[in-house]
C-alpha cells in the first residue's frame, strides 16, 4: 500500500515520529511519499534550512510538490491570486487528485478540513 505525509505543519511538527513511521512502512514493503502544496523552486530554496530532516532519505521515496498542478488546478490558481478562492482549497483539490493518481491508501495531513474533508482517500488529520 502507499502512504503520504504532508510536510508543513505535519512532518515539521514531529519529524522524528514521521521518520520512524516512514522507515517502518518502507521496511514492511509499503510506499511512502511526501505530498506538499509548495512549489519545487521554493522547496529547493529552503530545503536545507527549513527541512534538515529530509537529508536522510531512507524514510521516504519521493517528494511531490505543486509543480504537478494540472491544467484545471493551474486555472484555479488564477482565482487564488485574484482573491476569489482560498489557497488551501486549491491545495486540497491538488492533493486529492495526486492521492487518486498515485493510489495513496492513507494520507496524513494537519489541514483535514480543507484538504480532505470531501475526499475519497482515508485521511488522518487535524481540524484547525
Amino acid at each position, binding site marked *: 500500500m502507499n502512504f503520504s505525509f504532508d510536510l508543513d505543519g505535519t512532518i515539521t511538527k514531529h519529524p*522524528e515520529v514521521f521518520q520512524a513511521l516512514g522507515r517502518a512502512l518502507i521496511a514492511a514493503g509499503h510506499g511512502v511519499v511526501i505530498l506538499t502544496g509548495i512549489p519545487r523552486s521554493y522547496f529547493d530554496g529552503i530545503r536545507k534550512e527549513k527541512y534538515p530532516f529530509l537529508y536522510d532519505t531512507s524514510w521516504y521515496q519521493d517528494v511531490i510538490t505543486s509543480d504537478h498542478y494540472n491544467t484545471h488546478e493551474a486555472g484555479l490558481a488564477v482565482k487564488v491570486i485574484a482573491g476569489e478562492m482560498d489557497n488551501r482549497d486549491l491545495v486540497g483539490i491538488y492533493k486529492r487528485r495526486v492521492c487518486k493518481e498515485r493510489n495513496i491508501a492513507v494520507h496524513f495531513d494537519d489541514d483535514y478540513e480543507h484538504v480532505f474533508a470531501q475526499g475519497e482517500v482515508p485521511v*488522518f488529520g487535524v481540524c484547525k
Partner: protein
Amino acid sequence: MSFSFSKFIRQGVKLVDKFTQDGQARITHEAWISQDRFGKATYASPVTLRCVIDSRQRIIITTGGQSITIMSTLTFTSPIAPNGASGRREPIDPRDKITLPNGFTGPIIDTSAPIDPRTGAGYIQRIMLGAR
C-alpha cells in the same frame, strides 16, 4: 477522521502498527539491571518484542565527527513496558542487549522515542544497532 495533533500522532502510530503487522519480527530484549564492582553487567530475563527491522545499512556521523555504521534500525509501534531497575533509561537503555531473529546482536548506538505529552511515554520507539 480528525483529531487533536497528539491524538492524530497516536492514532497514526496505531494505524502504521496495523499495516506493518505482517512485516514485524520478534526480537529478544534483555534489559540491563545492574553492574557489579568489577564491571560485569546483570540482565533481566529475556523477553520477546515485536518490531519492524530495517536492515539497510547506513553510516551516520556523530557530532564529534566519528562515522558509525548502522546495521539495523528497529521501529517499535507498540509500547514497550519499562523494566523498572534503578539507573536505567526506560524503556530501552543503551546497555541493554537486543538479539535479532538471525542471531545478530550489535551494540545499541542510539535510541529515540518522541514523548507524548499526555501519557509521558514515547509515541514510537526507534533503536539503531551498530556493527560488533
